[in-house]
């Protein structure tokens, strides 16, 4: 694939992610720089349920589907498109991945590894707070009218 998206474009995209929208662009550039740019072919897994959660993914291009594995079958619970972040729970708590994420189309993503993330926010209480706040909003949002980032298809 021809590489068109540069670091600066990534930063622009990151700013559209609710978690990071209020964070200093300079820090976002650092975050983007220290993260890996990864790509997946359709059908490839970004992570799978029960894995050690090591990174969050910000989708830059394409779409990913989220599944949960219950009673022997994968049930699709949502989709994540451009500018959305998935697997971000690992940034806050250490737990296993709760869902499986699979590329629906060709996916370009920024892989924010947990330990780099901690190193970046270590001296940035601002990011820390922003993230907690967004998370809290998310939780409240999901309680009342579903998450604002993935459309729930669970019936």
């Amino acid at each position: 694939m021809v590489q068109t998206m540069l670091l600066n474009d990534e930063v622009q995209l990151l700013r559209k992610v609710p978690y990071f929208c209020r964070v200093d662009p300079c820090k976002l550039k650092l975050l983007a720089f220290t993260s890996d740019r990864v790509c997946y072919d359709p059908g490839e897994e970004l992570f799978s349920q029960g894995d050690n959660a090591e990174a969050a993914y910000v989708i830059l291009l394409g779409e990913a589907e989220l599944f949960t594995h219950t009673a022997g079958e994968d049930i699709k619970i949502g989709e994540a498109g451009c500018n959305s972040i998935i697997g971000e729970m690992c940034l806050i708590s250490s737990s296993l991945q709760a869902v499986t994420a699979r590329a629906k189309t060709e996916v370009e993503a920024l892989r924010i590894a947990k330990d780099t993330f901690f190193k970046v926010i270590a001296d940035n209480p601002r990011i820390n707070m922003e993230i907690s706040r967004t998370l809290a909003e998310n939780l409240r949002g999901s309680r009342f009218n579903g998450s604002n980032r993935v459309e729930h298809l669970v019936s």
Partner: protein
Amino acid sequence: MEKHLLRYIWNHTRPQQIWVLSIVLLSMIPYFMAFDLPKQIINGPIQGGGGFDSPGATQAFLDFSYTVPLLGWTIAFKGFELSRLEMLLALSGVFLLLVVINGLFKFYINNYKGKLGERLLRRIRYELVDRLLRFPPSTMRQVRAAEVSSMVKDEVEPFGGFTGDAFVQPALLGGQATAALIFIILQNLWLGLIAAFMVAIQVGIIPKMRRRLIDLGRQRQITARHLAGKVGEIVEGIDTIHTYDTTNYERADISNRLGQIYKIRYELYRWKFLVKFVNNFLSQLTPFLFYSIGGYFALRGTLDVGQLVAVINAYKDLPGPLKELIDWDQARQDVQVKYEQVREQFEPPQLLDPAIQTMSAKMPDHLASPLAAVNVTISDGSGAHVTENVSLKIAAGETVAMIDNSGIGAEAIAEAFGRIAWPTSGRVTLGDAELLELPEAVTGRQITYASSDSYFFHGTLRDNLVYGLKHAPSVPDNDPNGETNPRRWAIQEALRAGNSIHDPDADWIDVRSTSVSRGGPDDLSRSMLGALDAVQLTSEVMELALHSFIDPKDNPTLTERVVEMRFALREELARDGIGNIVAYFDFTSYNKEATVRENLLFAASRQTSAFNAEVVEGEYIFEVLKTANLFELLYAMGLTIAENVVEIFAGLPPEHPLFQQLEHITIDDIAFYQQFMQKRRRKPGMEVRESDRKAIVRLSLYYIEPRYRFGVLSEEIMDQIVAARDLFYAKLPMALRDRIERYDPHRYMGAATLRENILFGKLTHRSPDAPAKIRKIAARLTREMGLYDSFINLGLSYDVGASGRRLTPVQRHKLSLARALIRRSSYYIFNKPLPGLDRRVQEEIVKNVLQFLQEQDNNPSVVWVLSNTSLSRMFHRVIVFDRGSIVEDGSFETLDMKSGIFRTLVA
């Protein structure tokens, strides 16, 4: 060991001492003949005395006449009649002959003495180490390694030099001195008695004064030994010293010790020279007495002047030997003190019987007799009992978990089974015999003991792994005649010094005593692989192999196969549709996953010790860049990179962990770029220094587009770099030729690791799963292509460093367990061998180990002291210790039913 060094020397070198003494006496004959000859030459042929009065006179040469006493037979030779000139030449010839003979005698005697001394030194060193190997464990715990090694190495050293002179010197010098004294007495009884009296004073006083010297010598030796011990301690405890900031305390301690040593040594000097002064004074006093008293009597007329002169002349020969004799005595006392000091350390109250360690090539019969403890009480260093009256029996084939509730009873019993701790009362028995009375050849093979503090010797992983199989050389080498010359010499010399005659380079690995024993040639490798698998060390060994460098010259077959595997892997990845996760090296195209520099070089560079290779390389690269018109392009590119890097990193505090993510840029570099960029902005047209330009270009050299994503690497630059590769090789300086090895898909590169050679490309940055995917396929290929064993072997050639320090502690523990598993034994005692290991991993390893051992045909028993009590469910039987006594003993199920200590432990 004998109490006195002289006796020790005499006992071990008696025939040789007598031989060298007789040679010395024999050498006296030509020596004294040579003394007399110059006088004969001068008086006879030169001055014309002794029958050469008239010009034509001749004299007999070599005439002699000897009458055998009692029998009255006369042997006589009339000699040759020689003229004066002929006689001069003949006598000079004899003189030359005597010079040669004397020289040869001296040469032979010195050599012989040297040989004698070195052999004795070898013997005594060997004996000390032999004793060390026979120390009981309690004594061994008090020994400081560095002190003992300094004793064996340095303190015994002077014994060798002394040995040759030990008996020859006093015999010879004593004889000379006595002869001189008798000669004086013969000249004049009274003056002779005066001389004898003075000698007696000298011989009496000087050694008394030297007593202080000896005392100081002893102190010097002990303080020096402690110093060696302390230095050893510093080396071993360096981490603790650093972490607790006690370097200055250690400095003070060393300084204090050195001060003491200085004080002792200085006093030693003072005494030495005082003694010397007194000695010289006394020996000069005698002539004074001769002159004054003798002169007085001569004046009075009661003494003949001729006699006085004769006495004074004769006295000249006395002080020389006497002084040397006293020096010899000093040397004797010196080495005696050293000897006593060393001996003291090597005479513990108890020493293992040598019979216990007799080498035996025979495998002990695998007795199924029980290993048992009968009323065993074990004390720790302070004398407190850690077990009390413990009795237990381990039957054949049983697996037993031992657990401590409180105290270390289980560990102590395991140590007693392993022969490391000796019971203070009670007995440990194997079959009918007491364990401590059985030879180590039996217990050391019937029983395998492993704990977390097992030691590793300097060498490769393999050496350490098979260490437990080296009981005896597989080919007995008792017949010195059947050996090669150097080996025969080695055996003879070893015998002369009472050393071991076995060759350490022989094949010591006992292939019959491997745990997998099916009689096939691959028993050893199967045991090794099985043991490594059981302790989960295989992947780490493989990792070591992948990191290693192989020289294709040493290993042509293997490296060829690796190149084959390179292509196979490429094909296999393409077949799986993931060929794009590796960017292969291709001479005609730019590798986007590699740095600009790597793309230019298109080669693996060898680590060299040549001091300036890297500098030369850097300069040469700049040169090539300039010729290829790339320098300015890369400079411009570097400026953009610098701008970005500064923007990203400038705000971070210098200790920020993210700096470690930048491989080739340091914090100082960032500061430099920042300043540089600011300066440029202020004065746009300024002249840029060459060194600054290079620094900026260097930034471009380490740029990887997918990693940095600054979008500065244009197609043009990439094409130009590819084109510049030829240029780079065209004028490669000599200094770099050896260092740089060009990528060639059909050749193995000795300058690259095994992994790089297999992959022959760069993993893409864009797929985080790439390493895992590759590993899976590569592992399969390795097995399919039959390279697995070779790679493992390569990994096993890894050097573990001094006491295994190049391994991590966990690796060491696993290796220690694997080393135990390789051995075929009836009893395996594992004393908390895996501390600090993940619970899950521990469980897996315990399971693997039990399975591995139970697969063997000899039905071994396993005793495992567990730190993780829940693992006890995997064992037939569980023994729970509490404060040194057994409180519960039974199967896991029964103990789990009872509401005893065990349940509280497991719950």
